[in-house]
């Protein structure tokens, strides 16, 4: 059994699901495309940089991002 940790040392991902580690991916909107198949996206909670190497995303598209990688275009 692991030692008891003080509160607050357990990482909190966005919401109550660990968005990066699970099968759950998040839908975000592409704000602008960057070199090296990267893009700035709007997550609804702020902007983040993700990889769009695996999808043909354009500015304004909704994409499904998992662990920093876009894996699908949504609703197109």
């Amino acid at each position, binding site marked *: *059994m*692991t*030692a*008891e*940790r003080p509160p607050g*040392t*357990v*990482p909190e*991902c966005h919401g*109550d*699901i*660990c*968005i*990066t*580690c*699970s*099968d*759950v*991916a998040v*839908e975000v909107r592409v704000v602008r495309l960057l070199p*090296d198949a990267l893009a700035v996206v709007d997550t*609804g909670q702020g902007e983040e940089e*993700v*990889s769009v*190497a*695996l*999808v043909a995303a354009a500015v304004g598209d*909704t994409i*499904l991002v*998992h*662990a*920093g*990688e876009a*894996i*699908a275009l*949504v*609703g197109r």
Partner: protein
Amino acid sequence: MRFVDEFRDADKAHALAAKIAALCEPGRQYKLMEVCGGHTHTIYKHGLEDYLPESITLVHGPGCPVCVIPMGRVDDAMHLASRPDVIMTSFGDMMRVPGSHGSFFDAKANGTDIRMVYSPLDSLKIARQNPDRRVVFMAIGFETTAPSTAMTMLRASAEGLQNFSVFCNHVTIIPAIKAILDSPDLRLDGFIGPGHVSTVIGCRPYEFIARDYGKPVVVAGFEPLDILQSIYMLMLQLSQGRSEVENQYSRVVPWDGNLVPLKAIGETMELRPYFEWRGLGFISHSALKVREKYAAMDAELLFEVPGVRVADPKACQCGEVLKGVLKPWECKVFGTACTPETPIGTCMVSPEGACAAYYNYGRMHRSRVPEAVRAGQP
């Protein structure tokens, strides 16, 4: 919010629940497995079991990546992380998974250099910033996550980064489903198929379940109405004596998947002959390892890994929970010795784990509700 509000409409949920109830044959019991931990989480967060008739039981499947990692692999990772020249990077969920000598968090508290990342790309940044150290990424997850690891390896290779490697624990969902179908102690009527794994692999890989085992599969989204609609679609197939693969989540999942990530996975990784799953044992061709072409990024080749098989703690019944044989609250240590703060078993670690989902949302099996009500009466 688009794609959220319209999938949480209570009136529509009640209407679907009524349609599901109408499809139940009197006297027949239905067991449906939601393969994916994300679905388990949605089911308990939104109390979806309460919308279903008593005759439908949802069985929680093995689709939570950290829940199925065997203790021996955690110990191997810990061994790698303990090297002074190594910086280990890991997703948040993995940080709390207990090995035989504590978790990544415990090791970090004792001075081991383990850093939490939100994406393998962050590991590349750490590698660039620390050219004199060797950065090992603890790669874990199903086909949803493997593309991210694959692309990171391809980026590292293109960049000529010499100090980045991967400790590969990626698993594939189809062999696990087959192992469950072949398991003698579990009888299932249908499957709620994983949504985001299917954005990558598509719906075709599930066809053998319908064809060879005669069980319907509905690939489902993650909102409450997605899941209720998928249960309705499964029940409709069962009532009509059909067994087909259907796609409820077509707004995201293309029938044929996405070939680009599949190619990236195929370029960088290949199937292992076998891999151990917690609760399910050794399953053939059920996990990925780094391809020989990228051996310079394979932590298992670069470093010495003990590779010792470690039995789960005796009190832990994660295996039975993962196979759906036991409900989380039926485990001896559930909610007492094993809690999300101090997990003994992996199912209590991730919010997607069946035990953590039960624990966090205070749910119990419906058969216990009357018992609990009686206990609460004077």
